[in-house]
Structure formats: C-alpha cells, structure tokens
C-alpha cells in the first residue's frame, strides 16, 4: 500500500529571464491554486520550477495553456524531526537501502518540517522509510 504516499509534483521548465516565476505564480493565483511547497533548480540559461500544489491537474492545464512546458513527477514527503540529526535519519535510511536521491527540498509543514524527495525507486523508498519507522505524508494532505 505505497500508492497513497506517492505525491504528484508539477515541474515547470522556465527560461532564466526576469518575470518568469511571477508569470507562473500569477497564473496559479488566477486559477485559485495554492502552492504548498516549491523549489527552483537553475542551470546555465534555464531553470526548473518544482511545486506541490493543491490541484495538480488544474495547475497542469492552466500552465500548459499559457505555453509552459509542464510535467508530473512522483515524489515522496517525509516528516522530519526538526532538530539536529533529523535529515540524517531519512538520508541514512535511503542510503543504506541503496536508493538514490535525485533531488530534494524542504519546507516547514503545518505539523513540522517536511522533506520532499525525488528518488530513483519510489515504491521501494516508501517501504524502506515506513519499515524504519519513518513518517510519510499522504497525497491527501496536499489537497
């Protein structure tokens, strides 16, 4: 029963130009979509905006219509102890299991710190975290 822990993140390709993030944020606001967590990864000349939103399908549709290139990515959200060693707990569970973290970003959730992770093997990652006694946030908590 790993499915309920798989969270649909939207990823938006963006040229590295002033105003691009504002355009994305404005479009989501107009559509009444709430951004719960997000990060920007930048490279030479372009970036990728990754976000967890309350209505991923509506966000996809809105942004695609405006000409943005959008894709869905499966990520997991792990509740983190908000004290020294919190990140180590999670990273070592995955590391010991040989699961690679492609990227991650953190945000402070309503009930404490949360780490969003894209891992190379999602289902196995979920099982390992749960087996080690970790706490995962379900997809319904992002609606």
């Amino acid at each position, binding site marked *: 029963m790993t499915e309920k822990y798989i969270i649909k993140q939207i990823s938006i*390709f963006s040229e590295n130009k002033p105003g691009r993030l504002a355009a994305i944020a404005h479009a989501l606001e107009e559509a009444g979509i709430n951004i719960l967590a997000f990060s920007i990864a930048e490279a030479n000349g372009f970036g*990728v905006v990754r976000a967890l939103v309350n209505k991923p399908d509506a966000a996809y549709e809105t942004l695609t219509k405006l*000409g943005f*290139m959008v894709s869905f990515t499966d990520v997991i959200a792990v509740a983190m102890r908000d004290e020294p060693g919190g990140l180590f707990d999670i990273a070592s569970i995955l590391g010991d299991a040989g699961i690679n973290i492609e990227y991650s970003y953190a945000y402070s959730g309503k009930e404490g710190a949360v780490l969003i992770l894209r891992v190379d093997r999602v289902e196995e990652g979920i099982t390992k975290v749960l087996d080690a006694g970790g706490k995962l946030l379900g997809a319904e908590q992002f609606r």
Partner: protein
Amino acid sequence: MRVWDPRIEEMPPGDLKRLQYRLLKMLVYRLYSFSAFYHERMRAAGVHPDDIRTLDDIATLPFMYKSDLRDNYPDRIFTASQDELVRYHVSSGTTGKPTVVGYTANDLEAWTTSVARSLTACGLGEGDVMQVSYGYGLFTGGLGLHYGAERIGATVLPIGTGNTERQIELMQDLHVTSIACTPSYLVHLGETAGKMGVSIKNDTNLRVGVLGAEPWSERMRTKLQDSLGIRVFDIYGTSEMSGPMFTECAEQHGIHIWGDIAYPEIIDPETGEQLPAGEKGELVMTVLKKEALPMIRYRVGDVTMLDDAVCPCGRTSPRIMRIQGRVDDMLIVRGINVFPSQVEHTLMGIPEVLGSAFQIEVDRKGALDSMLVRVEMSPDAFSDKITDLMKMKAKVGHELRNSLNVAADVELVAPGSLPRFEGKAKRVIDRRVY
C-alpha cells in the same frame, strides 16, 4: 613592385580576352564530351560547344549551383578519377552532406600559382616570414596560403589557429613580417598583444596582413592599419574555386581575378541576366583551368561588382570589389560557412528537440564571433532533472559542432516559444558590425 608572372598579369586586355576565349572553348568541349553532368546540363539548355563563338557567349551556358555538388556527393561530378587526385578538401554543405573538392596535381599547381601571384601583389617575396594562422586541414585556408607563400620564397610558420599568446611570442622571436588570417582574428591578436604589453607596431617586424574567409570593411582596414602599423589586403576564394586564390594589389582597390585562371561575371540573382561592370549583383565564377572539379558559371552567392578597367598597378586582370553580402542566408562564423538549412537538418535528426523552430544568434564577443542556437525542446523529452537537461543541451551542441565544424552555444527553450513564420523564416539574428 614585383610582378610574379608579368606575361599573364600584364597581358594586353585584347590578348587576355582571346586567351580566355580559347580556354573557355577547350573547357566546354572537354566537359561536353567527358562529363555526364555538364553534357546533360548543356543539352537541357540547348547549347552545344560549337555555339560558343565569342567570350560573351558564356552567357548562354547554364549555371551550376552548390546544390549540384550536394546532389552529386561526394565525387560524382568530378572529371578526374581517384588515382589522378592528390588531395581532398571538405567544406560545409547546405543540408546534410558536406561539399567535397578534389584536386589533381595540376589543380594544386594552378592554386599555388594563383596565390603566389597574389602574395607578390601584396608586396611579399623572398626574405619575408609568413605566419599562416588559418586553420589547416579540411579547410582550404591554411594549406592554400602555405604553398603559395613557400612558392614565392617566403619562410612559412604554419601555426594554424588558436593559442594567441604563443602566436605573438613566435611572431616576435622569428621576426615574422606577414600574417594570413581572418580579419577578426587579427583584431583579437592585436588586443591580446596589447594585454601582454607587446606593441605590434613597435615590437614586431609585421608589415603585411592577408585577410579573408569572412566579410570585412574599409573601416576595419583603416582601424587595423592604423593600430598595428601594417598594410592589410583582402584575399578571396571559395573551396569550390580551390580555396583562397585572389587578393588586392598595392592599390588596395579591388581583388584581381587572374584572367587565365578564372572568368568572373556579375548577374542579377533574380533573372540570371549578366550585369555590366560597376553594377552590384551576384558573383558567378567560371574556373578556366580545373581538372578534377570544373566550374562553369558557378553561382557563388557572394554580392559584389566588377571593375574591368586596367589597374593603375599595371595588371590587366579584372577586379571584383569587396564582398558586400550574400544572396542567400549563408553565415560566416569564425571563417567557416554556416547555412541555417544545415542547422535545421542537424536539429531535425535529434529527437529531443523540435528542429522545425530554432533561432541562430551571431554576435562578436570581443573580436571573435560567437554563435548561439536557440532550440525548442520536445515536450516528450522534458525531464525535471537538471542533469538530464544539461545532457540534452550538451548533445545538441555536440551534434551541431560535428555537422557545422564550428562550435555553437545552445539554449534550450520551451516548445512554442520561438517565433513562427508564415512566409520566409527569419531565423538569424546577426548583431555583428564589420
């Protein structure tokens, strides 16, 4: 001023015309008899070699196009067999396949003779040291200047492109008197020397620059001559003609096209009609002596005008004026010809991008050209991992480098974000000022 071959170079105009007529007549008979390509072309145009009764009758002969070379890749248009060839050069094509030029020993001899006359006209000879800073290899610049300079008894420093600080060191240490390179490279070399605390004017023996392979202007000539304390001359030629072959003389007013080697015409690119001397149009070249890859009325695509008056230097070969542009969309980037159609062809072969929409931006960073290709990513190829996107970008850059022979920066953009065109696409933004 020395003249390398006064008999030809100063031949009375009437005699030169008779010589050219004889050479043309022989060429046409030879090709009609031995070249399937030319035979067919002439028959389709309804011209027989017997119809060529004066030099002016050249205007009745059909044109030859760069696409003919592509369509007959690599050597189906050659009129020499492989065992007669002594060299190949290869330049970029318009789409897909490059253009291959084969040379017999006589072709190389004619090329070298042409460069020898030209360098002599630039005031070079025995006792000079020439630094050849054109690319060696498949590009014709390096080897063309190399053998021409050796022929006139100059000492050649075959240094090729790049490593500018070393170029300046050797220029000083070996008392180099002349350099052959692109005009933008000479600007760069001057600037680099300045940063090294070397004055080309005061600290070197450089006195002559032979500059070509890209367009430049009188303004740049003045700037280079004043800042470096040398005289710079324009050199012209394309790989189809053999390579760089023709230069200006001491008058610095037009490039002499040696009459026994080639016959230039200027035409209206729309109608194909010949234009009189002094009118601007497309250059069409007939190479009168060429064994492996003959050229009758080849549409070069460069825009210039003709001056057939006898030059004050005494040479009677007609001159073409400085190249003023192209009739097509060919770009010259760091001396290398780049066709947008070739860029499109390359991008079409990469599944991760939409090759149908792209943009080329050419600029000059410092003295040297830079080329940026903006290309739309295919939505199917979009990954939200930066490393995947960087890999994709590197792949596009690599493929472009391979097919164009010149490095290009790549910018990935979202699909649909580049302009679409209903008529003729304007895919090139050229910000360079010559």
